[in-house]
């Protein structure tokens, strides 16, 4: 299905996913009114602390949430269709075929009992119903595409015979096996060492260029974001606090949280003895304070921040920020 020109490939519109406790007494707003756009061929980085709702957002897009969680409101427009309205059976044809996902842990992502070829061929057989030999032929080509040496012998081997980097590339091959339009990578490099990380990121970029993939890249490594992404979405306490092109956000962050995140990257030239950290803890998502959820930790918070929740302000250059300061800056800039 071709993308509709001018419209984003994926557009989340005020999406909220909540976890509800068994008694229904506690509601955790893991993803709260998130709006974002992903255009074809673009890389969007999602950053945020642990528990900021990044992974839940990814699971929401594929609708593979745990039973306690559910999408309570919003829409997800993907190639002109609303994924929220789709039935489970329809969603199965989206998963793996049109939107693929790479999970965090490459060591555990492969079934230890099946050969590599079998597993790379599986989504092809599930989604396209092609025969075994044809699917295996494609599996060999995919392994070649992800730079696995001697794919002819590798397809008949088992996961334990591969190194961690190889396994992660194989998981990448499974991800692109049905030529999806969108690939979601949830911290795909956290368990790899640095040289392998760099190789893998290069590979992902090449695959993206060759296949015209859109990529959603979930990470807490801002260095990777700078290297990989076109757009950046910063999440805090389940909300998007700032979004926009990477270079603009890195140069002039609009939200104090983004500023604090960027300041906490250690630099080689830094002579300070201690690392900069953001004071305090993220709020409890089941009982969010009134006003801005970052206010308690924010160095430049003022009265309004503690009383009213800031809406999403559209700034210049396709940026958004949920901060009263941004609205002040916008007004003074316009005046």
């Amino acid at each position, binding site marked *: 299905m071709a993308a509709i020109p001018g419209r984003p490939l994926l557009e989340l519109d005020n999406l909220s996913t909540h976890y509800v406790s068994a008694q229904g007494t506690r509601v955790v707003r893991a993803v709260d009114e998130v709006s974002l756009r992903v255009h074809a061929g673009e890389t969007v980085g999602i950053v945020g602390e642990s528990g900021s709702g990044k992974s839940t957002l990814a699971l929401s897009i*594929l609708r*593979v949430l745990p*039973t306690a969680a559910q999408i309570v409101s919003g829409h997800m427009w993907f190639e002109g269709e609303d994924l929220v309205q789709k039935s489970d059976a329809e969603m*199965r*044809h*989206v*998963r*793996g*075929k049109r939107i*693929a*996902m790479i*999970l*965090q*842990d490459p*060591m*555990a*992502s*492969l*079934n*230890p*009992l*099946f050969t590599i070829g079998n597993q790379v061929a*599986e*989504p092809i057989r*599930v*989604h396209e119903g092609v025969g075994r030999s044809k699917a295996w032929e494609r599996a060999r080509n995919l392994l070649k595409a992800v730079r696995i040496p001697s794919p002819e012998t590798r397809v008949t081997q*088992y996961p*334990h015979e591969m190194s961690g980097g190889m396994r992660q590339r194989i*998981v990448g091959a*499974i991800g692109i096996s049905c030529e999806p339009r969108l690939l979601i990578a949830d911290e795909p490099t956290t368990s790899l060492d640095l040289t392998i990380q760099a190789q893998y990121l290069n590979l992902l970029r090449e695959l993206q260029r060759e296949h015209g993939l859109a990529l959603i890249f979930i990470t807490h490594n801002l260095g990777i974001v700078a290297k990989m992404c076109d757009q950046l979405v910063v999440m805090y306490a389940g909300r998007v606090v700032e979004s926009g092109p990477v270079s603009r956000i890195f140069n002039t962050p609009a939200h104090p949280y983004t500023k604090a995140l960027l300041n906490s990257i250690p630099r080689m030239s830094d002579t300070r003895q201690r690392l900069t950290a953001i004071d305090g803890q993220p709020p409890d998502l089941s009982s969010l304070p009134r006003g801005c959820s970052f206010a308690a930790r924010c160095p430049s918070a003022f009265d309004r921040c503690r009383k009213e929740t800031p809406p999403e302000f559209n700034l210049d250059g396709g940026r958004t920020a949920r901060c009263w300061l941004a609205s002040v800056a916008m007004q003074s800039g316009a005046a």
Partner: protein
Amino acid sequence: MSTTTQRVALSPRPRSRSSVARLGDLPIIPLTILAIITFAAIFADVLAPHNPEVGSLTARFHPPFWQAGGNTDHWLGTDQLGRDVLSRLIFGARVSMVVGFTAVIFAGAIGTVLGILAGYLGGWVDQVIMRLTDAWLALPGLTFAIFLAAIVGPSMWNIVIILGAVYWTRYARVVRGEVLSLKEREFVRLAVVAGCSKWTIMRRHILPNVVNSAIVLATLMLGVVIVTEASLSFLGVGVPPPQPAWGLMLSDGKQGLMVGYWWLTVLPGCCIMLMVLSANLLGDWLRVKLDPQLRQL
């Protein structure tokens, strides 16, 4: 003392593991024993020197040939009705093989399927299946089997069904536990995000990963099942009397034990023991063979 610790510390791999692996490569003894029993079971009609169900009252309690009073017409002696013990052992192998293997497979199939459904689907399916399992396990196995046997009446195939119906719960428990941990594994989640349906995941990702545990359990259960079959026959609700079953032979021979007719109980007892032991050893080897990671050791 210090030298011992040093040697243990220096040895590249724990001893027990390497010896298991070596044993795993050549399960010749258990395979041979099982092959002999299977061979005897299949060709019982040809091999047995006498009719196992017909004896002559004039030839009762002959001892095995090497004892005084024994003869080579009845290699392993005769029982209280003058029936040839060797022939009865050979035909008894048939009963034990058929009952043991089919009952284990039957119980394993029911238990594995229900265990996978309970573990993977969770929710009310899990509740229903596991409460049923709990209730089932609360009943003592042998008593329950006797109860069922009394209802449906004694016959070999009824015994198979009864044993399957009594012992599936153990598989269900073990398999469900395994599935609960498997479904949180990353490769199952990957299959979910790759668009596989629940049934595809259960069939392709869950089942092959629990088969190992089911087989290991089956080898243990084979012993239990054979012993239970023997017990049922011993108690008179198993395989009906003229048919030769090892348990029945034990039962019939038990009075003779007090007056020196040892062969009537010791020989079928040895057969049961050898078969159970071989099944366990073979199962251990299979477990290693079925795991691609252990296979290479």
